[in-house]
């Protein structure tokens, strides 16, 4: 072969043409590198906008919907309808650092959501319509929407501000779980890393659905993911065990007791062990961890043998040989020593938790008793062939009323392993209300008093959908009915308080310049509240304004034949006391003042003259100087 270069015909202009695209790209890269703008980052078109969206204050308020609630006054659970971004903003100040666990099931971005289409999808649709991507019937003209340049960006822009706000709500030991599938798992993990910090990711659970999807061009997907991120993984692990009860532990214990009882002169301990070992090997539904407990000791305890050999750091370990109980000789010691220090080894020996071999040559093992290990760390695999449809058909719904509801058992396991009995659980993509159901079930199982706050969009059910046929015009109606029925089934009486995200309680045209005011209309402009606000709506305006929690008990009392509302009143120097009637006498004012609430609220229209208002203020100043009087 000749190493002479191919002869270039210098007269051929085309062969010497510069590839301008490549040149420009290279130039950009070099400029970036020179200015040191090149770095590892995760960004998309619209990220800045999403950031600002999270930071923008809300102008919304919450309206009470007692008629849509169960035990509105007494319940400490919340059901919020409306855009969850607004809901999260309304929760920001009141629940800052107070939520212990969040589970969400956001849209997976498959483009196939049927009943539950969230806001972001809507705006996308509207955009598409205006840009001519959709035809008039709303059918997609562009078939492969995944090739759409905005496909991932839109989803990220939707989820980013919501996750950011959600993190603020988590307590220091709090944790969030996000359900997702193959469409956005990669982006979600990157996004959670950015928001929560790499160290705080608590792992991803794979839910094996036991049933492969048939519509894939690649491998057939049979699983979904649940990604976990803690607010602060160190504090989380300090306060939360992240353990679930072993599913079959009770069954194993019962069987072992049954076999142990049979022991007599003819049926020895080793016979019992033989029978027990056969039984446990025959049980197919036991996990590997459960099957390992394959032995019975002389006291009838079920145990497993675990090596005591140290995995590393031999310099820090105990290397002292043990004395074999039968031969009386010193036993062998593992190469890197024992797993424990001398003191712990003594303790194990004393508690009879060391298993010796037939002679001193066998290295002794440690005995793990099942009764002391009834809980197990939540593993990264979750097997469940059933979707949540089974949970909702059980309470009398048609199977296809929700698309892809999550199994109650899945969320129940997450709740059991990460919350204490009186903590608060949030789900702002509540959809079918599975989280609320799971909270109630967990409470009924362990006698807990966990509270839930769930939020969902009051989106209309599509025409000719199953939901519409049965008479539900919006998604939130079905969710509430599901929670009601689920509660009834397990006898849960905690109820829930329904609140609706709505425009602020003030009249919108109340802020007028002098020129806009007419003398004739002056009287109408005095009362700046929209007239259709109920007493509870006014109360919620005050709660939103004062950043008080929304799920505390309300009591209605009668004083001087007038109705007053007490909110979260726990004795002097606490709570809100409202009077919205028309007959505010001196005596009633005095009685309210004697309660010494933190806030006393009256309605502007209660006072005929400003002198009356001054009088009320003065009474409070004398009787209860620490009470803030609010006239709205």
């Amino acid at each position, binding site marked *: 072969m000749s190493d002479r270069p191919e002869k270039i015909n210098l007269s051929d202009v085309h062969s010497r043409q510069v590839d301008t695209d490549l040149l420009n790209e290279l130039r950009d890269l070099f400029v970036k590198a020179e200015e040191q703008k090149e770095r590892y980052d995760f960004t998309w078109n619209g990220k800045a906008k999403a950031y600002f969206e999270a930071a923008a204050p809300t102008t919304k308020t919450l309206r009470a919907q007692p008629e849509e609630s169960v035990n509105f006054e007494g319940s400490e659970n919340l059901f919020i309808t409306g855009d969850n971004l607004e809901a999260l903003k309304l929760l920001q100040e009141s629940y800052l650092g107070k939520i212990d666990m969040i589970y969400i099931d956001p849209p997976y971005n498959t483009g196939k959501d049927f009943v539950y289409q969230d806001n972001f999808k809507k705006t996308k649709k509207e955009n598409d319509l205006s840009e001519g991507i959709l035809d008039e019937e709303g059918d997609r003209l562009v078939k492969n929407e995944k090739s759409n340049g905005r496909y991932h960006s839109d989803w990220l822009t939707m989820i980013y501000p919501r996750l950011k706000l959600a993190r603020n709500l988590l307590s220091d030991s709090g944790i969030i779980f996000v359900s997702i599938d193959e469409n956005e798992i990669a982006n979600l993990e990157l996004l959670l890393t950015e928001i929560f910090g790499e160290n705080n990711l608590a792992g991803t659970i794979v839910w094996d659905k036991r049933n492969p999807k048939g519509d894939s061009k690649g491998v057939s997907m049979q699983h979904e993911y649940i990604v976990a991120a803690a607010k602060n993984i160190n504090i989380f692990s300090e306060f939360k065990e992240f353990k679930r009860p072993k599913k079959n532990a009770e069954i194993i214990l019962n069987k072992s007791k049954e076999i142990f009882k049979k022991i007599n002169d003819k049926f020895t301990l080793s016979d019992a062990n033989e029978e027990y070992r056969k039984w446990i090997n025959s049980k197919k539904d036991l996990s590997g961890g459960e099957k390992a407990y394959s032995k019975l000791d002389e006291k009838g305890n079920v145990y497993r043998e675990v090596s005591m050999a140290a995995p590393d750091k031999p310099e820090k370990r105990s290397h002292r040989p043990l004395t074999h109980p039968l031969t009386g000789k010193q036993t062998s010691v593992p190469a890197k020593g024992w797993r424990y220090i001398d003191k712990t080894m003594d303790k194990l020996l004393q508690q009879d938790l060391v298993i010796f071999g037939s002679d001193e040559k066998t290295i002794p093992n440690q005995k793990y008793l099942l009764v002391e290990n009834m809980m197990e760390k939540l593993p990264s695999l979750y097997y469940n062939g059933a979707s949540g449809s089974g949970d909702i058909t059980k309470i009398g719904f048609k199977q296809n009323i929700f698309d892809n509801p999550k199994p109650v058992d899945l969320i129940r396991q997450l709740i059991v392993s990460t919350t204490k009995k009186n903590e608060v659980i949030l789900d702002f993509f509540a959809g079918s209300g599975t989280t609320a159901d799971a909270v109630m079930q967990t409470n009924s199982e362990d006698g807990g008093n966990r509270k839930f706050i769930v939020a969902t969009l009051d989106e209309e059910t599509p025409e000719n959908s199953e939901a519409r046929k049965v008479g539900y015009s919006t998604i939130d109606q079905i969710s509430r009915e599901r929670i009601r029925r689920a509660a009834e089934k397990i006898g849960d009486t905690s109820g829930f308080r329904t609140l609706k995200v709505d425009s602020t309680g003030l009249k919108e045209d109340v802020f007028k310049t002098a020129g806009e005011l007419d003398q004739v209309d002056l009287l109408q402009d005095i009362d700046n509240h929209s007239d259709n606000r109920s007493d509870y709506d006014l109360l919620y305006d005050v709660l939103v304004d004062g*950043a008080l929690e929304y799920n505390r008990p309300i009591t209605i009392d009668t004083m001087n034949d007038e109705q007053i509302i007490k909110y*979260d009143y726990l*004795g002097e120097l*606490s709570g809100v006391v409202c009077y919205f009637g028309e007959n505010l006498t001196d005596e009633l004012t005095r009685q309210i003042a004697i309660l010494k609430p933190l806030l006393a609220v009256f309605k502007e229209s209660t006072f005929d003259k400003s002198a009356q208002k001054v009088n009320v203020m003065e009474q409070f100043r004398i009787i209860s100087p620490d009470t803030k009087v609010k006239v709205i």
Partner: protein
Amino acid sequence: MIIEIPKQAVVNRIVPKDRFNFDDATKIERIRWLGKLGPTTINLPAKKIQEIEIFSVDMIDFDLSVIKEIVSKIPQEILFIINDEILIMYYQGYCISKRVENHLQIKGLSIDEVRDNFIRQLLDLKDISKPLKQQVANIKIINELEFEIDRINTQIKRSIQTNKKQALARERYTIEQNLAKLRGE
């Protein structure tokens, strides 16, 4: 007298002030050893406590450090009568005092019980069935909780944000419930 000491138990001797290292002995008028309650004087058996001394201390301005000094020098249990109106006893490192309206009674089947019943009378405990140690511990907890409630109340008044105030009130409410449970027992 606040307490009637049986004749055999009366000692009635003046204790010289220079036996102790008082910071300022001039403010003490007189220390008198009034009586001695022991197996030899009131004919009750002694278990752990051999005898109880009764001291009267007269001083114009009450000063607890005087009592502390005497307690540190004399190993026996001492019931102090200050200016004929205040009774003081030390129990488990705590100084228990009471302004007495009526007579203090000598009750019990042993010297130990007499001491325990003195403490109970100082603390207004009517129930003598439960062990004193537990009762005193209870009172200690109740006092601490009450102190905590006062502290929270001041904090509520001092904070500005309503939601912070309410969170404190909630904390106080939990303590109040614990307190009610303790008192109910």
